[in-house]
């Protein structure tokens, strides 16, 4: 019978690695060099072999014998030393040293969102929480005493706006005032992301908090279209929720964009079946009135803008059902992320 010497050699080399004690080494020796061992069997097969095969089998058997002997000799020293070594480390015990702490899930989510846009070429800018009515409302085409303000109930501060006599400073109710600030100071092209805290006088429950976080995005240039708004946000959603995400753009109303849309994603990929479509963000093409308010020449620029709630994105992505968990800071919550 023909022997596959290559395969046998490989097997022997692997097997010798598991040898750790003198008993195991002896068993290894007997298995290959003993009277009933493999090398014997190979030599014995010489009798039935044809003339040509004989030479090959003879050489193979000798090589095999030599290899096993060498391996045994090399291993013997190590086995002897190992026997003397009394204490063995129980590697299954835990490692020592300081375990890592956890960045807050909201920080992680905000970083994830901003990083996706930064990699596409956006710049992250932070703007203040304490704002003026102009930045938070008027500049964004939300007039005083208009029902479109109803969606933006706002905390006012016990402090006068130095730029508008008799009007109070306020806590921004969305990150969109960042758009106005940035456009007032800079000319296009602009590609900015504004993350931050916002405030609305809402009664606290599982889905409302009077303080939460948003990420705002703004892209302004001479040519920007609604198709690009769709492309940009589709790419974002794929990177954030995964490539299988299914989205839809639904017409909506925001005073500072025209057209305006809300983006929903299919709940299926998140394993939520309660409602088919989940709203995740608002967006649109910058309303020409906003360009006018910041002093851009009429008709020169187009822009797209979008805004999303960080808590909402994190709740959807990680299956969190109560917004209060974010601010309660129970370590058993914090240490899960």
């Amino acid at each position, binding site marked *: 019978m023909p022997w596959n010497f290559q395969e046998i050699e490989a097997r022997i080399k692997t097997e010798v690695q598991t040898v750790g004690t003198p008993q195991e080494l002896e068993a290894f020796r007997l298995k290959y060099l003993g009277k009933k061992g493999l090398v014997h069997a190979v030599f014995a097969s010489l009798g039935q072999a044809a003339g040509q095969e004989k030479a090959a089998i003879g050489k193979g058997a000798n090589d095999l014998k030599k290899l096993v002997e060498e391996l045994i000799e090399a291993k013997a020293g190590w086995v002897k030393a190992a026997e003397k070594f009394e204490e063995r480390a129980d590697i299954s*015990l835990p490692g*020592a*040293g*300081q*375990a*890592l*702490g*956890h960045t*807050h899930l909201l*920080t992680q989510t905000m970083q994830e969102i901003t990083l996706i846009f930064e990699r596409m070429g*956006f*710049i*992250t800018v*932070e703007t203040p*929480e*304490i704002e003026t009515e102009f930045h938070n409302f008027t500049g964004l085409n939300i007039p005083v005493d*208009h*029902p479109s303000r109803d969606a933006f109930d706002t*905390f*006012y501060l*016990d*402090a006068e706006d*130095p730029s508008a006599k008799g009007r109070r*400073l306020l*806590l921004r109710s969305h990150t969109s005032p960042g758009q106005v600030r940035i456009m007032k100071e800079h*000319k*296009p*092209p602009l*590609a*900015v992301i504004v993350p931050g*805290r916002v*405030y609305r006088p809402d*009664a606290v429950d599982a889905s409302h908090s*009077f303080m939460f976080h948003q990420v705002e995005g703004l892209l302004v240039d001479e040519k920007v*279209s*609604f*198709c*690009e*708004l*769709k*492309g*940009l946000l*589709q*790419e974002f959603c794929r990177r954030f929720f995964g490539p299988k995400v299914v989205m839809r*753009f*639904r*017409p*909506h*109303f925001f005073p500072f964009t*025209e*057209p*305006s849309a809300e983006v929903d994603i299919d709940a299926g990929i998140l394993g939520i079946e309660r409602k088919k479509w989940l709203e995740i963000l608002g967006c649109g*093409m910058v309303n*020409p009135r906003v360009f006018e308010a910041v002093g851009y020449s009429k008709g020169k620029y*187009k822009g797209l803008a979008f805004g999303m709630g960080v808590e909402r994105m994190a709740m959807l992505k990680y299956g969190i059902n109560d917004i209060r968990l974010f*601010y*309660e*800071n129970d*370590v058993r919550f*914090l240490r899960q992320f």
Partner: protein
Amino acid sequence: MKLSLNWLKDYIDPKLSTDELAERLTMAGLEVEAVEARGRDMVLEMEITPNRPDCLSVLGLGREISAITGRALKCPKIREHKTVTLKDLVRIENKKDCCRYIATLMRGARIKDAPTEMKARLEAMGINVINNAVDITNFVLMETGQPLHVFDYDKLSGGKIIVRRARAGESIITLDGVERKLDPEILVVADAEKPVAIAGIMGGQDAQITAQTKNILLESAHFEMGIVRRACRRLGLRSESSYRFERNVDLDGVLTGAGRAVDLLLQTTGGHLGGRAEIFSKTRISRPKIKVRISGVKELLGIEVAPAKVKGWLVQLGFKAAIKAGILTVVPPSNRADVAQEADVIEEVARMVGFDRLPAQIPVIKSANITVDARPREIKTDIRRALTAAGMDEIITLSMINAATLVKTNITQMPGIKIFNPLSQDQELMRPVLLPSFLQVAATNMNRGQKNLRFFEIGKTYFQGKERDALGVFLTGRRTHDWRASEKEQVDIFDLKGALERVFQITGTGAGYEDVAIPAFDPGCAAYIAVNGKQIGIMGRVNRSVLNNWDIKHQDIYFAALFLDEILSASHKAVRYEPISEFPAIVRDVSLAVDKSVPYKKIEDICRQQGGEILKSVQFIEQYSGDKIQPGCKGIVFSCRYQSSSRTLREDEVTQAHERLVQALSRDLNAVRR
């Protein structure tokens, strides 16, 4: 806004299943939030955005559905009823507040229940049924969107209507039975003596329709949106009428609404017309002619749309549209005040194409024309990295606090910024400091059995109208346990200082500490943190009395807070390489006993002064006490490292320098060498 599909089908049959209709409406921007079966009727619960008051009626939605589906809308036929003009019936004091008013008098009406079908329609829309006269006004309101009101004419003092501002001190009991105080900011509908309705919001009990009413006065009017909205806010009162007025009602609806209601009232109550007054001031919304470039559609949406198609859709939506030389001239209908510029018209086109049919395309993002100093953000990331590596967890707390928590924390000098309109005391103040937020989180965790807490927060603090980024660091409970060590130890002030040193290391900031008394902290365990001689923060062990106030027992808490902008301005990341000396260093250990009051820093300072150029570093080794040290003293061990970058130091010059240093310590600090 609810929409009964049975009612809708009186005017248009969309030939779509309920689900399909809901989907089409939603994708046209009229979001259907829920669908409810009501007997044989289906009712859609809709969210109508504030820019679309024209959709707050069955006919308004019918018009939209007609445009979406291409099916015809059949408006109800209104029979005209002629009557005499009553000149003195109505007077309007200020036409800016009310630019149109039609009062129609009907005599000999019989008040009873409304017809069954009308009642079913109203109930499906969530409207309470009352009697035929009132129900008809509500029916026409829901059908056309025009708010209406009916008065018992015989209860109107002087038999006339005056639209005027309320006088100071006047009040009215509204139909909901509540007495409401009025003032000149509020517009009322009055008779010769007193207000009988708050204009556009709710009628008064005095002139309401009752079973005994014989003569009815019907009001169909247009009240200015701002004045209605402000009155709603002042009074905390809203109604189906005010909801529409504050969103702006179609001016042309005043006439249609009056005509439809009169027709139905005559049919239903059996009365006859007794006269009419119409006041139409010149104030009329002139609808703008909007120029829309066909090329503008491509620019804004990113795709070409055939001009004929654009025009077709606009016409279906009730717009007038004409194309000439690539320019579309568009006149929106009187109920579409939201459409006033090119972009608004193009949005209508996009809605009709369907947002989902527009292709997605990745934008080319040019480098933005803006430079931002990234350091303030980077420094936060660096600090997070350093502190999480030290095993600390980041927390995020609410920036608003109850002012009482400051008092609880012995903080009295920092006012914070008051919120003018808080919903509760827990939101009354923008916090001036971070410590109360941390104590709140600690108390919550400890109550739940979590006692070993290592927290930090990068959050804002607020004062004098400004906000400022701060870092808080918080330690309590057991030091992270190394299972190989025999003892389990509690954290102390040096764990806190170690955490701060990590912050200063990663930001490249050199900081000093200065003992000081801070009311929130224990005397003897509190310090200012200073950078370049400027105080940038505080650290210490939280005072026991403060902890008692927070119900935190049996555990010490260590806390530090500092301003990030100060760290930023002091941090210097630019480092230059210093060649590693090829010459050997000589290390001499020193063991001293000094008075307990002597800070180690002083020892190190003297060493540096005396050690000369060859003293490269002073390294603290340990502090100890015990029998061998005389009372009132402490033992200090440190090592001095001598080295030159240009030559091998001689034994005798090191000894000389070292002796000079040790003698100075004995002389200046009364230190005894051990």
